[in-house]
């Protein structure tokens, strides 16, 4: 092998590299995914509990963070493994299990106010991100079970600790139809 045969070969290889690289770069800008639609699609996969366990103030900010690459797909405990997998699949990434630092994935639950102990202070009302608690100052409060997402944000403000979390009534049926392990 001498320079006469080496030079053309190197030249062709280099030329191909330049051309293909330029083409890829141009295509990357032309075919870039619409960032807004990505956020919408990510948000649609999240469970909408608005609990803040992912350290973002709501599901949509978390979706924005995932889309921008700031956050991983492993931060949503209420969504559980299914959501973590779906988020990763949408982005074409390797699915990661839910990081326990952000919380524990629990079965669906609803908050229940012990009406005997409720003092009607109305501090839990603004805390609920989906307005599932009805009540008014000095009136007993109650949680609308169908609208509660079990996000637990009402527990801290309550001064008498009268709110408990119970398994959601739909849970038993869900357990019966869980996929077979065989």
């Amino acid at each position, binding site marked *: 092998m001498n320079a006469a045969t080496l030079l053309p070969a190197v030249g062709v290889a280099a030329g191909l590299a330049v051309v293909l690289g330029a083409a890829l770069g141009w295509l990357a800008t032309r075919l870039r995914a619409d960032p807004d639609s990505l956020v919408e699609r990510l*948000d649609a996969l*999240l*469970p*909408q*509990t*608005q609990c803040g366990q992912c350290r973002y103030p*709501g*599901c949509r900010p978390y979706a924005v963070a995932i889309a921008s690459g700031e956050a991983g797909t492993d931060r949503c405990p209420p969504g559980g493994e*299914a959501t973590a997998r779906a988020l990763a699949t949408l982005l074409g990434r390797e699915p990661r299990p839910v990081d326990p630092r952000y919380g524990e994935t629990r079965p669906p639950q609803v908050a229940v106010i012990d009406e005997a102990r409720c003092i009607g202070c109305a501090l839990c009302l*603004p805390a*609920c*991100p*989906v*307005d*599932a608690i009805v009540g008014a100052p000095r009136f007993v409060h109650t949680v609308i079970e169908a*609208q509660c*997402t079990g996000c637990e944000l009402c527990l801290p403000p309550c001064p008498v600790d009268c709110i408990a979390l119970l398994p959601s009534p*739909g849970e038993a*049926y*869900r357990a019966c*139809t*869980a*996929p*077979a392990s*065989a």
Partner: protein
Amino acid sequence: MHRAGFRMSARPVLRGGLRLESHKARPLEHSVQLLPAPSIAVLALDQGSGEEARAVVTPGTRVRVGTRVAAGIGAAADLHSPVSGEVRAVELRPTASGQGTCIVVASDGRDEREPGLAPLNWSTLDGAALLEALAGGGLAGFGGAAFPTAAKLALARVAGVELLLLNGAECEPWICCDDALLRERASDVVLGTRVMLAACGARRATIALEDDKPEARAALEAALAAAGDARLAIVVLPAVFPLGAEGLLIAAVIGREVPTGALPPEVGVVCQNVGTAAAVARYVSAGMPALTRLVTVTGSGVRRPANLEARIGTPVAELVAACGGYGDTPPAARLIAGGSLTGRALATDAVPVTKGLNCVLVATAADLPWREAQVPCIRCGDCAAVCPVALLPQQLHRAARADDLAGLARFGLTDCIECGCCDYVCPSAIPLTAGFRAARERQQLHEAERRRAVETKARYERHRRRQGEEAEAERRAFEAARRRAQSDGAGRA
């Protein structure tokens, strides 16, 4: 292998499907036997459609034959008492679908009819009036689905269907009550068809039979000739399972498929079972609502298989007893409500007859060969070859195991008619159909959760907007107060 491959004219009538041994000869050796009224009638509020009617009687109410005991709502038709006597209880009892609320009536043995039940002069009524009159008859789909007939015909009238299709196919092995009905009461079927034609407004009616029923065909042709109604015709189809499934039958008869998720009126057809037609005929000729039906009692585990005319609410045990009782050699192994492929296994013979119950199969182990050990799928593709709706059960099975909802949707889980053909031919003995049923339920749960998430999100948005508005209002009030304080101060200064 049992796979069917055949042609009727140039076009195959059914893709896939199975040609099975029919096992229908023994009950048809005798004519239909009339079963006496039960001493206790157990009337399930859910007669097979999945929805319960609303009971309108309470324990202690006296009822007669034909008294309405439950009001129809949604997919449940009116329910009438088949015996005269007293309502004992309204309670949970074992039924074909597990358990359900039942009205338990104790018969006084007198069989008193409800006064005021009279024949209907149906030919003088126009479509809407006829539908209203039919609605009071408790008529429901006798083919198994038990959907209220009047409601179905009304929907068909609104959609402007042009063909009324009578389903006399009875493609599933062991069941032969429709065959017996056509042999002995073809004139009832013809009358019922003409009434339903008037009710739904269709221009013509076709009665579909399978080619393994020559006696039924002859009887029907004679009845049609006697009626002389040119709008009615017969079509004979090859005996393949599951050609009797509504969507597949329609495609075979008119050559067009019902679009997925849509109902038959969309292609101009409404389908009814021949048993339903006979019940309609009885209602208009005698005023008697749907109180009895033909049930095939068969299987090697019963001594004398037969077709019985039984009252709704009769416990299955009485049907078996009327056929000689359970045999001992070989002993009865399973009790199936329905045929060998789509039937439901019953845990007890205390289950009552409902409008949707067409067969009681007392099966020995030899009657119904059962699975050996299950092994992994070897991807042989036999399941896809027999699937009548052209699904890929192999792929659905994998998607169901992986809980891959997108895959399940892509491979058409919602189009599965749960006929069981794929299970039947699978060499790995995989319970495919059971897996699809479970996957369907999980899919519905998932969809319900998604809908809930969308609503929750909307509430959250409203919550934030309200908080923003409240904060904005507070700020403006503060600004206004501050300005007022300033101008006051300036004024005073």
